[in-house]
């Protein structure tokens, strides 16, 4: 029997607000343990939450960008459970009435386009972190609580069970991540946990209408983990069914080292969260004017940017698509165009040289040592005839390694192109005299031999001769 895979994703995205969702503590990563905390996020007796308006604005952005309906009235609810990283003993979230409803995200897998539905987007607060080793003394045998992350704003984006493969799940997550980054509401960092993903996975015989029992997988913090975990889970469920067993509803953790999922808790062991509306917060009311204001200030999204690159810069669709695949790449490109001007040339360099190097190193573009002014500077040297296009490619590799400017590298390595006829002429004369046979054959019509002479001149000048000028002088001197 062949099975069909059904996947729905729940994505938690940390919002890039300067302060937490219900107090004024900083959200900055890397403070000393509990350095970003106050009576409110420590859940001292008597404290009350006050909603950060910026958080609402960011959630509206996410909703508008994914075609959701923004709820005129949404309600914060308490999700009750005990854990030391949850200081109040409940998480303030949204339950029955979330801020965004419906929506969709378009994805493409191997060129095939597909629309994935969104069930909802809701607001909630993050929990703190437990450390099982003391942050300074490194002593073990006890646990320590760091509440810097407690109260950091999150949106949870819940997809419909529309995904049919691990590849689709990854494509969906990549697209969603790009949108969030474009919106400037999440940094998308999966390793640091700013973007987290849980997957609901089930399988059913092809043709069957009813969904199979779903299993929730947690603890995947990279695209590769998600792909591997889903593949593994699908295989596991298939095996269970083939052996005549039954998939049980449970939560499983992905173990990225062993590459397996491990059962964490069954449905029976699941918490009863006892959700109820938080009486400390009024219903969140959002009017049209607020939505319109957010809409008007919405950052340019990938599709719009792509269209603009095509019309304004005359880029091909495929080039524009690649350049807008991430906001940082598009920003890089636009910064270069601003400095350098020639969009076509810049895009060619980025799409071939730069992207190849980024692929090789696996580094994100933000960490690339060649900044837009650096790349622009290199192209300007070519235009000024200081270096050849070929030399520029070599210089570029050194720039990637060292971060030095093209100008400095060229000067340091004595690479500057010889564009001075009075320097080149004696060298060329010498070479023509040294190769009488070839000169004769050229004069008799074998014009291909020009390449031989250019090669000789380049050898003599260690590649620094300005190719155009060398050609010109050679042709003049070899004229019959």
């Amino acid at each position, binding site marked *: 029997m062949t099975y069909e895979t059904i996947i729905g994703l729940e994505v938690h995205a940390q919002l890039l607000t300067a302060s937490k969702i219900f107090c004024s503590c900083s959200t900055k990563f890397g403070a000393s343990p509990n350095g970003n905390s106050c*009576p409110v996020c*420590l*859940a*001292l*007796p*008597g*404290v*009350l*939450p*006050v*909603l950060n308006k910026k958080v609402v604005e960011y959630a509206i952005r996410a909703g508008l960008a994914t075609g959701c309906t923004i709820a005129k009235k949404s309600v914060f609810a*308490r999700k*009750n459970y*005990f854990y*030391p990283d949850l*200081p*109040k*003993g*409940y998480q303030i979230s949204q339950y029955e009435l979330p801020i965004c409803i419906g929506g969709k995200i378009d994805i493409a897998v191997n060129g095939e386009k597909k629309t994935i539905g969104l069930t909802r987007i809701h607001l909630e607060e993050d929990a703190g972190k437990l450390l099982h080793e003391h942050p300074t003394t490194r002593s073990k045998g006890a*646990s320590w*609580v760091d509440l810097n992350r407690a109260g950091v704003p999150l949106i949870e984006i819940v997809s419909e069970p529309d995904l049919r493969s691990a590849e689709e799940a990854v494509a969906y997550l990549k697209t969603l991540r790009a949108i969030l980054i474009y919106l400037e509401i999440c940094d998308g960092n999966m390793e640091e946990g700013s973007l987290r993903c849980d997957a609901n996975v089930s399988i059913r015989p092809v043709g069957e209408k009813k969904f199979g029992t779903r299993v929730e997988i947690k603890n995947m913090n990279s695209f590769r983990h998600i792909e591997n975990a889903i593949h593994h889970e699908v295989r596991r469920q298939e095996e269970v069914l083939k052996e005549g067993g039954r998939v049980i509803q449970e939560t499983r953790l992905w173990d990225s080292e062993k590459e397996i999922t491990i059962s964490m808790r069954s449905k029976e062991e699941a918490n*009863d969260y*006892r*959700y*109820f509306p938080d*009486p*400390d*917060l*009024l219903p969140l009311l959002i009017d049209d004017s607020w939505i319109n204001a957010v809409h008007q200030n919405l950052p340019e999204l990938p599709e719009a940017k792509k269209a603009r690159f095509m019309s304004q810069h005359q880029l091909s669709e495929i080039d524009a698509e690649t350049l807008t695949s991430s906001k940082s790449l598009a920003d890089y490109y636009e910064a270069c165009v601003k400095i350098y001007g020639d969009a076509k040339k810049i895009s060619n360099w980025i799409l071939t040289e730069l992207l190849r190097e980024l692929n090789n190193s696996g580094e994100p573009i933000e960490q690339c040592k060649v900044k837009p002014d650096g790349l622009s500077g290199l192209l300007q040297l070519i235009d000024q005839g200081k270096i050849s296009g070929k030399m520029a490619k070599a210089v570029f590799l050194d720039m990637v390694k060292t971060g030095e400017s093209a100008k400095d590298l060229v000067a340091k390595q004595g690479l500057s192109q010889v564009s001075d006829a009075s320097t080149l002429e004696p060298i060329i004369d010498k070479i023509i005299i040294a190769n009488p046979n070839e000169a004769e054959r050229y004069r008799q019509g074998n014009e291909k031999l020009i390449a031989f002479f250019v090669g000789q001149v380049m050898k003599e000048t260690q590649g620094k001769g300005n190719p155009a000028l060398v050609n010109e002088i050679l042709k003049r001197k070899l004229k019959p």
Partner: protein
Amino acid sequence: MELHHQTLHEVHEKLKKKELSSVELTQAVFKQIGKTEKKIKAFITLTEEMALEQAKKADAVIQKGGNFPPLTGIPLALKDIFLLKGTRTTCGSKILSNFVAPYTATSVENLLRDHAVIVGKLNMDEFAMGSSNETSAFGPCYNPWDLKRIPGGSSGGSASSVAAGHCFGSTGTDTGGSIRLPAAFCSLVGIKPTYGRVSRYGVIAFASSLDQVGPLAKDVTDAAILLKSLAGHDPKDSTSLNLPVPDYQKSLGRKIEGMTIGIPKEYFVSGLEPEIEKAVRDAIEVYKKLGAKIREVSLPNTDAAVPTYYILAPAEASSNLARYDGVRYGFRHPEATDLLSLYKKSRTEGFGPEVKRRIMLGTYVLSAGYYDAYYLKAQKVRTLIRNDFTAAFKECDLLLTPVAPSAAWKVGEKTDDPLKMYLSDIFTINVNLAGLPGMSLPCGFTKEGLPIGLQLIGNHFKEETMLQAAFAYEQATDWHTRRPKL
């Protein structure tokens, strides 16, 4: 009258005329506390050193001359549910017995802004859950009118301290009657303002949608002065309302002629002790003489109040009290060996039986499968109760009822029967469910000499109307001038 038995506004006049200083007044209060506090056990913590410092500063303000707020230099006390930076705040519970507040409640900041002197933190039912002050982990508090009896609760210490002259006014909180009941049992004026009138920030939560801060005082004028100081919008409390605070004292003395006072018939039924009913009916006669129109009204859902309250309040409490887990502050059981035993042992020993009863009740009504039948239904009934009042206030300016079906009972009398205890709040709970302002004022004494309270209920944010009518009654009677003999 002895100094400690005088009213807040009377001693304010003395301070103004420089007949005595705040330091002298504060010392006199502590002298009285030294004499009689052991009989009533109103305080959990005394803050004499801090109080004298505050009194000195208040004297400096008074010395500068000019106008100063009427609370300047006046010794007050706080229910031990209010956080005051640097002082222990226990909420009457073992689980917070070692908790020192690192910040100050907004309402207390308001009192300090007006240069009040804080003499201590007052005894209360644990987490404000009780009607008799007997659930306090620090032992019961006694009624100055009869030391064998309870002062009412949960703000028991807030009432007995003022009645005994251990302070000139106090703060309380009222979730289902916790200010009005003890005020009635101790012959005081107690106000539960409109929900949202006074900030809840820094006041330990019991049931967030019902809790409201208010004053307990010797007469209506004192209560008006205290309420003006406590009230006001607080950006730290999302449920606090951004409305200007009237000068409540100005509404005192206005005639009440033509005012319509509604008498809800459901409040005069079986269970109401005849002596109480008579005192309240007499009060109605006084109002008639003062020119008020009396009109019988109906609040048909009155019977649903107690069951509705005992679903909603415990539900919210079960969640509000989850933070007391022994992890960050408060009592942590020394024998805990792992996370689960830390939670279990700390909470089992840290909370008293009434608090645990309500946590279990609240957890139950919010549980999957029961939520709709209990919590959701109770919310709907709450709306019905609210609608009853809305309808009544279409034809009345105020409602008048008894505060409680009986006067103060003996210590231990109802502790074995929680249901009987819960019924003592039968006339006050509705006011919280509807978010309305309500107040208690003295309207007589039983044959045994126990105080009886009259309740006035106003429409939302109509505290002025309520105070105006209360003052008119107070002027026409002299119940408020009596003091217990200790």
